[in-house]
């Protein structure tokens, strides 16, 4: 997960942020202003400065914020002038918007604020619905308003053209003032601000609801904030039942405010159509005499602070009390009287924003703030520390305990020149001071430190004895060391425990600690390593922090006992309290913390910051250091020396046959088709040549007769997990089974069992094919429709002109992770895109996921998360009495169903796929293909039919799609690229093998921006940064082929060629519009060495004819095939696709990998298909395979003719490995068949 920020303001009004990956508060880059309130979300932070004006701080992104202004020039024909700007009186304006209703001449467009600047001058758009227009961009129609075409006809009386101009937002990474309003009611100075509401709608992209409260208690809503317009347009006043003191807004539709009188008001009626909501509901505070002063909401939680219980006070002071730049002294004094209890509101959710009841949290805080994932932070009432609520999960929104964030400030660290001691003491100060008057705490520390000295000596002794023990392990003489040693060490450690235990007890006697001291557990772990104890347990806290002090003198050893002895404990007394930040306000609205997130906030740190590490991908193990190479070389030499001449010697330990047995269910091959119970056994043995081999047996009974089925492990081409909620099953394919489209299907009782077997079988297959370690640079990668990732090693004869290797013989092994798209090139660079549009780069590892131990590398496997939607449909039929209702005809589908209507899917009973967990509630999906009406309905004449997003008189049925997000957390050799979300990527397939040469990568962002990645090399597959390439409309697909030919597909279905792209000019100069095949909308493009192939939305595969160096755009589209979902064209111009449907001898498969046969330089279209693995495949890339056929294997390495074309460096493939594999594989297959 990329890091995100927690924002806070100290009592001097200085703004700091703390990264989830960091350990230090960093002062805001723009220090020019003091602030009193902040409201942050991921992409920006809104704040109220000490001038009571509102500012926004937008984080810079690699894709610039730019806004397309457009206006239309309208003309009418008359016999005298021809087309002219003299229109009829009833006509629209000469310059208007698209509807013709608003007058907007070119020169009246003004920049909205000083933060914007024009990117270019006005120009004419020469594109209508993917088709290029004549020069000048005019589109013709009979009259306004009507359908416009690019062709001028005899009856074309009017014409119009579209002018475009871009403006760019220039105020990223700084506080940009929201301009004062020139029209409408001018809001007073502001007092509070809230940002949220991005989950209400994704139309327009990046919608945010910003709410502000003025000093006079009025509430305003900022209109039109989205990604392209980060500052919004105007303030609209929202009526309230009383004067408001504070406001809060959740990510979804929760919006609450606090009235001066102390009641809570909750906004009702916020939805997609009306983000401002419609009315207020009043909620009474926990008890009537102590009203609320501050409140914060998330998606499903509401936290609040009440007015001081003991004293009561004028609530109007609150605004100032938290406004330190003005009244620093006063604020400090008034801390006492703003004392506030923290309350949690039970049962708050979108359906019931009012909640059910209050729970008192028994802690006093100045304010609380709810961030992403309903995590909560607060500022302590007395100590002004920031507390994080630990243990907030979807099952326990109220969390478990408060933990103090003890991260120190960046400039503190700098000014102390990394002095470990002072920092450490700061950490101790924060830890110990909790709720203790300072005098007492010092006195206890004196005792404490002397006690710690004793402790230190004691632990040292213990360590010494452990050391002694370690250095004379054979003292017992009989070799039975574990009996003697373990209890001994355990006893010593128990001693340590006792020492620790005495300290808090002492403390407790001098203080009035209420909490009993927890009994240290027998295991040493908790009290030696836990550094941030929960607040409730004061005793534990003091131990934890005193240890963390000592630890911090040695950053690498945070959990060692031994360093206790070396640390001078008296140092706490020298502490100057001035250095500690006192916090005034915070906002976690942009801070992504989940239950499993590791935070470094709770321990005081010293020395170098480690946080940097998490931002760069570690160098993969493929980068060999000298000593490593030396070791590997010596080991090889050793084996030669010690084994070569002695192979005939007997092995001391015999390798026996190894058998794994189990019980499973098997889907019968013949009728009756059903699951039957079977016994299975995998027998593995080591051949005389030292090679492992295996046979997998399935024993079953048929008609009381015992039978069996067997597969050789070297015959298996793939093992596919088929996860569904009813059966934990997997499929085994062999070439024969692939032809039949009828794999062996087996099911286990538990999921764990299935993954165990998959791992064991997969290892057996790899062993028998001698496949170990990471895939080669030339590997083929594919992704199933479940997001599982498979990789296959190509062989030199895979692309042979004569007798190529049948694609059903490729062996595919699984790699951990979850992706939708994967792209690679022959340098071994691989990128993927998850279902949630996150981009991932391959780390060079293997395994992950369910692969454990040896089937997996360790140092380059990372956690990978992905989010996707599960969809169900609500179906209704019209009847004359009630209109549309859920009462269907008896023949109708289920009223809640899947897309096909065949399966009943209700909200309550639909489960996420195995290993996935729900992360949202059900919501109506307004983005269903085909469009929807305002309530999300799609209409049709009858089920099943084609649906449209509007109601006509012939429509008797309707449906709407409900979506629910679910999430998987797995592991794999993938490193997150971040932060731009992507929908397509393409790597240049063939480049020189020089390690420092850059590989070109082009991508389409999820918003449709075209991006080019800079600085990708073999050594740094992650690259450096994105470069944005301007387009006039969103794009959908991109591909970069040989000679830096870049082709892209726009969302309107047209193709574009990018001119003049080269290593020197990585972004090229301009787009050439290439019309799609007639009446077709293209959706995907793939460019090989010279071949350009596209796929349209009806599954047609097209080849671009007439491409030549002088005319790279080509001349026309040639139809190649139907039934195609995706195409991948490689560096040899080889063509592979994922086909929609393929008929096998036993069954039909959807989503099948196919290989184009007969592709030759003179015949780039080829002649037919060869069918590979499937169905259920979603994506394939063969763009890394530049391995050429050769009749002479010796010349393989140098044989790379097609790559040696002018101005292109040759590619030397990693052929040796592939070579090896093919010969073995064929041999083994032959062997298998003979058996």
């Amino acid at each position, binding site marked *: 997960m990329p890091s995100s920020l927690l924002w806070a303001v100290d009592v001097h009004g200085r703004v700091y942020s703390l990264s989830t990956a960091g350990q230090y508060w960093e002062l805001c880059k723009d220090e020019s202003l003091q602030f009193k309130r902040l409201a942050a979300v991921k992409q920006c932070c809104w704040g109220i400065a000490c001038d009571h004006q509102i500012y926004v701080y937008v984080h810079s992104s690699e894709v610039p914020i730019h806004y397309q202004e457009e206006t239309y020039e309208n003309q009418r024909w008359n016999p005298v002038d021809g087309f002219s700007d003299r229109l009829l009186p009833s006509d629209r304006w000469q310059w208007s918007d698209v509807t013709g209703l608003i007058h907007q001449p070119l020169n009246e467009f003004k920049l909205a604020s000083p933060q914007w600047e024009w990117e270019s001058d006005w120009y004419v758009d020469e594109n209508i619905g993917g088709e290029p227009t004549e020069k000048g961009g005019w589109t013709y129609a009979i009259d306004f308003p009507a359908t416009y075409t690019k062709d001028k006809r005899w009856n074309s009386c009017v014409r119009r053209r579209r002018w475009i101009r871009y403006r760019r937002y220039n105020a990223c990474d700084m506080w940009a003032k929201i301009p004062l309003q020139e029209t409408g009611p001018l809001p007073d100075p502001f007092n509070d601000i809230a940002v949220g509401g991005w989950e209400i709608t994704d139309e327009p992209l990046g919608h945010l609801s910003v709410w502000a409260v003025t000093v006079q208690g009025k509430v305003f809503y900022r209109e039109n904030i989205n990604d392209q317009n980060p500052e919004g347009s105007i303030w609209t006043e929202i009526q309230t039942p009383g004067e408001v003191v504070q406001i809060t807004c959740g990510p979804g539709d929760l919006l609450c405010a606090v009235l001066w009188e102390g009641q809570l008001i909750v906004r009702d009626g916020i939805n997609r159509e009306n983000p401002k909501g419609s009315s207020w509901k009043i909620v009474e505070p926990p008890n009537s005499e102590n009203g609320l002063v501050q409140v914060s909401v998330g998606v499903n939680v509401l936290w609040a602070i009440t007015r001081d219980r003991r004293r009561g006070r004028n609530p109007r002071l609150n605004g100032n009390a938290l406004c330190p730049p003005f009244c620093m002294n006063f604020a400090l004094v008034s801390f006492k009287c703003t004392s506030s209890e923290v309350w949690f509101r039970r049962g708050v959710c979108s359906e019931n924003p009012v909640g059910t009841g209050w729970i008192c949290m028994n802690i006093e805080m100045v304010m609380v703030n709810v961030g992403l994932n309903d995590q909560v932070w607060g500022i302590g009432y007395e100590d002004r520390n920031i507390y994080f609520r630990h243990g907030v999960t979807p099952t326990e929104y109220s969390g478990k305990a408060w933990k103090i964030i003890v991260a120190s400030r960046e400039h503190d660290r700098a000014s102390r020149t990394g002095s470990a001691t002072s920092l450490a003491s700061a950490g101790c100060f924060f830890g110990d001071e909790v709720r203790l008057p300072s005098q007492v705490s010092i006195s206890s520390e004196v005792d404490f430190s002397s006690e710690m000295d004793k402790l230190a000596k004691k632990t040292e002794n213990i360590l010494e004895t452990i050391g002694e023990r370690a250095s004379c392990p054979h003292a017992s003489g009989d*070799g039975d060391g574990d009996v003697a040693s373990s209890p001994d060490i355990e006893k010593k450690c128990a001693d340590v425990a006792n020492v620790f235990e005495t300290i808090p007890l002492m403390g407790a006697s001098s203080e009035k600690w209420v909490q009993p001291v927890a009994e240290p557990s027998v295991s040493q772990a908790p009290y030696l390593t836990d550094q941030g104890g929960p607040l409730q347990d004061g005793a534990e806290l003091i131990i934890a922090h005193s240890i963390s002090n000592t630890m911090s003198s040695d950053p*690498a050893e945070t959990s*060692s006992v031994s360093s206790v002895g070396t640390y001078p404990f008296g140092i706490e007394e020298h502490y100057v309290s001035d250095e500690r930040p006192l916090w005034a306000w915070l906002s976690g609205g942009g801070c992504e913390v989940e239950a499993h997130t590791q935070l470094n906030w709770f321990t005081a740190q010293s*020395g170098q910051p480690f946080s940097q590490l998490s931002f760069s991908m570690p160098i993969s193990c493929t980068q060999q250091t000298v*000593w490593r190479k030396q070791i*590997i070389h010596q080991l090889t030499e050793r084996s030669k020396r*010690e084994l070569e001449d*002695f192979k005939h010697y007997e092995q001391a330990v015999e390798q026996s046959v190894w058998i794994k047995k189990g019980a499973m269910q098997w889907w019968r091959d013949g009728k009756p088709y059903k699951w039957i119970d079977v016994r299975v056994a995998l027998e593995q043995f080591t051949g005389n040549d030292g090679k492992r081999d295996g046979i997998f047996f399935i024993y079953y009974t048929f008609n009381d007769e015992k039978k069996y089925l067997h597969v050789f492990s070297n015959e298996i081409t793939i093992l596919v997990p088929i996860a569904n909620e009813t059966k934990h099953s997997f499929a085994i394919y062999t070439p024969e089974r692939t032809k039949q489209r009828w794999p062996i299907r087996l099911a286990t009782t538990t999921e764990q069992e299935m993954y165990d077997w998959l791992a064991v079988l997969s290892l057996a297959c790899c062993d028998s094919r001698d496949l*170990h370690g990471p895939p080669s640079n030339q590997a083929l990668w594919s992704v199933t429709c479940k997001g599982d990732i498979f990789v296959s090693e190509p062989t030199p004869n895979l692309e042979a002109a004569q007798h190529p290797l049948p694609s059903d013989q490729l062996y595919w092994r699984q790699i951990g992770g979850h992706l939708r798209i994967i792209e690679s090139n022959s340098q071994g660079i691989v990128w993927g895109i998850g279902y949630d549009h996150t981009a991932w780069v391959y780390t060079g590892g293997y395994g992950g996921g369910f692969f454990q131990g*040896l089937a997996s590398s360790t140092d380059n496997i990372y956690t990978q998360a992905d989010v996707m939607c599960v969809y169900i449909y609500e179906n209704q039929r019209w009847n004359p009495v009630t209109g549309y209702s859920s009462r269907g005809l008896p023949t109708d589908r289920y009223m809640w169903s899947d897309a096909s209507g065949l399966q009943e899917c209700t909200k309550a009973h639909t489960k996420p796929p195995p290993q996935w967990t729900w992360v949202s509630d059900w919501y109506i999906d307004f983005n269903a293909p085909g469009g929807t009406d305002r309530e999300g309905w799609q209409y049709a004449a009858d089920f099943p039919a084609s649906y449209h997003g509007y109601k006509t008189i012939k429509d008797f049925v309707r449906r709407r799609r409900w979506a629910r997000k679910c999430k998987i957390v797995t592991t794999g050799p993938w490193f997150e690229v971040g932060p731009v979300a992507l929908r397509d990527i393409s790597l240049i397939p063939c480049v020189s093998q020089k390690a420092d040469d850059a590989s070109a990568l082009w991508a389409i962002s999820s918003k449709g921006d075209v991006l080019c990645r800079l600085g990708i090399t073999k050594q740094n597959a992650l690259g450096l940064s994105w470069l944005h390439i301007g387009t006039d409309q969103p794009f959908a697909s991109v591909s970069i082929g040989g000679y830096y030919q870049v082709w892209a597909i726009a969302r309107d279905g047209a193709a574009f060629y990018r001119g003049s792209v080269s290593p020197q000019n990585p972004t090229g100069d301009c787009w050439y519009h290439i019309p799609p095949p007639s009446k077709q909308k293209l959706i995907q493009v793939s460019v090989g060495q010279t071949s350009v192939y596209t796929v349209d939305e009806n599954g047609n595969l097209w080849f671009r004819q007439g491409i030549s160096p002088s005319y790279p755009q080509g001349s026309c589209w040639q139809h190649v095939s139907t039934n195609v979902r995706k195409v991948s064209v490689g560096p040899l111009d080889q063509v592979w696709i994922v086909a929609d449907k393929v008929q096998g001898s036993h069954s039909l498969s959807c989503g099948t990998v196919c290989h184009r046969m007969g592709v030759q330089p003179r015949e780039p279209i080829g002649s037919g298909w060869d069918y590979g693995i499937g169905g259920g495949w979603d994506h394939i890339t063969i763009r890394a395979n530049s391995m050429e056929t050769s009749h002479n294997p010796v010349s393989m390495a140098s044989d790379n003719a097609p790559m040696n074309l002018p101005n292109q460096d040759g590619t030397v493939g990693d052929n040796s490995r592939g070579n090896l594999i093919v010969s073995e594989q064929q041999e083994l297959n032959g062997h298998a068949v003979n058996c």
Partner: protein
Amino acid sequence: MTDDRDVLRDVWFGRIPTCFTLSQDEITEREAEPYYLLLPRVSYLMLVTDKAKKHFQKVMRQEDVGEMWFEYEGVPLKWHYPIGLLFDLHASNTALPWNIIVHFKNFPESELLHCLTKDAVEAHFMSCIKEADALKHKSQVINEMQKKDHKQLWMGLQNDKFDQFWAINRKLMEYPTEEGGFRYIPFRIYQPLNERPFIQKLFRPISSEGHPHNLGDLLKEMFPAAVTPEDMEKQYQVVIHGIEPMLETPVQWLSEHLSYPDNFLHISIIPLPRD
């Protein structure tokens, strides 16, 4: 492309061609042929010499068979040292195969521990693993393991099952990433013909300044003579698993990849013959 896994594999599958010869002192009924075996470097003599034992017992009278022990060039071989270590320590730089003399009587009580069954080897092996984990993780990892995991480690070693052994052993090789290594490196430094059995002290993989310690750092502290100054002639070979890793090799990496199955880095320091 070589992965660190391949190093583990190479280490595990190291074999020493060995020729067992029955001692001249033994009384035999007929002449005993030498017996040839490939001994796994990572295993123990008592685990892999059943075949040799059977071979020699065939030519001996039952009453003459005492506890078996081995000798190489006059040195009794300690069964509780891994075979690779014994070879590196006593027989490196000699011609292969390794000639071991087998004895069935005159057990050298003062120099060897008795080993009547394989249980003794197991007990010794497990105690080494436990000691190593006490150094690496304060015993946390080994204590969290179940009995069957311990058994799997032992069975993996006994049956020469690399996968079986490493499936468990990898847990013992893990460490918190933020700490950058183990607490202490379990290592032992041996010298041939030395009174002291070996050198073992506490040594951290990371220096107090946060730099990873390398093999040179370790030797400088434990056995300075083994680190040859630039202008001097090399006096000692530093051998692990029959190879001489560069002194720049980080000890943490060595501990993870070149430790014996007992989780200790057994380092032999062999004086070079002066010419």
